[in-house]
């Protein structure tokens, strides 16, 4: 009976649950789904991580390539994050060129990465004006069930944390490049940025970590990204106006949740190494 009701009238289905102070998956309004992190799942990649938040599954792989730095920033490398919302993960997505949503998420992830100052681009430079690393961070969604930006950020941070790069011997006079794949070095990751998603419904009802169904019917979503001791990104693209009080509640909640996920990533990385 319940599943038919959900299909016929999804909005009322949600509303009725909220009226009895519970969410369709049995959670309370301000509780989170379990998060799991598995690092180094792709052995061929230079760094990789698989993150699950409830059903939402995202995998991130980083491959490093060599390139010539830009003339305007000769001592900086590059990081190119790219989010692919695979048609496998949700019926919303079709095969073909990246949709508007995935372009937006890619851009958001890039902004989070730059704003958090997690990686110093200068540490990716091998020889000034001649040779630097490009990190292609490909993030693919395998199961799309809401809060996908959280999952993408977490997987990217975990993958960057265990990233190792081969040592390169570069002779500027002859331009010869020798790559030692056995001898790998870590890139220092200065910050672990963790994103938390909130959804807002009628009467300023706030819920954390929404699923896809909740996100679809919500009136607005907020993303808040925390570094270890400061904030680095707040994103609310529109929708219903929210009061300052509700905003402060989100910030406090995001900070606590950020700390927990950060511990989880560090634990996962420590197990691996």
């Amino acid at each position, binding site marked *: 009976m319940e599943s038919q009701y959900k299909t016929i009238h999804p909005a009322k289905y949600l509303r009725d649950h909220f009226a009895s102070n519970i969410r369709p998956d049995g959670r309370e309004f301000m509780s989170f789904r379990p998060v799991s992190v598995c690092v180094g799942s792709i052995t061929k990649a230079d760094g990789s991580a698989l993150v699950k938040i409830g059903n939402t599954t995202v995998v991130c792989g980083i491959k490093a390539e060599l390139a010539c730095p830009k003339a305007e920033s000769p001592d900086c490398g590059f990081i190119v994050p790219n989010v692919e919302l695979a048609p496998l993960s949700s019926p919303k997505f079709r095969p073909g060129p990246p949709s508007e949503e995935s372009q937006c998420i890619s*851009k958001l992830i890039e902004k989070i990465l730059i*704003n958090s100052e997690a990686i110093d681009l200068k540490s990716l430079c091998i020889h000034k004006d001649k040779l630097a690393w490009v990190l292609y961070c490909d993030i693919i969604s395998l199961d799309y069930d809401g809060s996908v930006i959280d999952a993408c950020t977490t997987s990217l941070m975990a993958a960057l944390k265990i990233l190792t790069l081969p040592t390169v011997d570069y002779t500027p006079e002859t331009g010869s490049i020798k790559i030692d794949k056995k001898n790998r070095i870590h890139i220092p990751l200065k910050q672990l940025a963790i994103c938390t998603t909130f959804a807002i419904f009628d009467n300023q009802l706030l819920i954390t970590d929404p699923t896809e169904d909740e996100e679809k019917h919500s009136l607005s979503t907020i993303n808040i990204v925390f570094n270890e001791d400061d904030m*680095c990104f*707040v994103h609310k693209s529109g929708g*219903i106006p929210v009061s*300052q009080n509700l905003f402060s509640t989100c*910030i406090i909640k995001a900070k606590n949740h950020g700390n927990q996920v950060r511990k989880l990533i560090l634990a996962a990385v420590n197990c691996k190494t």
Partner: protein
Amino acid sequence: MTENEYSLRFLNCELNYLSVTDGSAIFMQGDTAVIAGVYGPVESKLHKMFYNKANVEASFRPMKGPPSVNDRLMESYIKDVCEASLITSLYPASSISVNIQELEDCGGLLASVINASCLALINSGLAMKFIFAAVCCMIDKESENVIIDPNMKQLNNAKAAFTCVFDNLNKDIICCQTSGRFTEKELLKSIEMCRETVQTIFTFYRDIVTKYATAI
């Protein structure tokens, strides 16, 4: 607080700037200038049609070159803010498109774009729940002071920059975008200062609309 801290750059606007659009505005905030044009409600394309509400589309054209991935995010801000303020259920199965052309960016582009689109929506006469206005502010790297509506030169010394969009009813936050690193206190203080400034823009809207009211 000195008076200077709360002051915006010089605002200037002309409505009905374009002849074909249903509503248009050219808006200048300091040296940042944008043109906004609204078409709607017009017939929607079949695959984008909603049976119970209008489909709101936004397109942003940068000053030079074709629109790129970077502008998609700008479009999503414009679309979501406009959609929130419009009563879309009054125009079922139709489409409303908001088009923005950047003319010059001297800091606070997103704020100017949002303000221009609000003026164009007012000019178009589409039904709205509330009107909105955006204020940009930044935190200085050295003095850690909050500067409202900074120009490009000031933004180069910014530790963090925020753009907040408020509605005119309760002055609640519709949209918030940040860059750089900052603490919770700095964020809340900056939002509060933006909120106190935003009334200036609403008053400006009123003046502009009154000025053109006889001509319409």
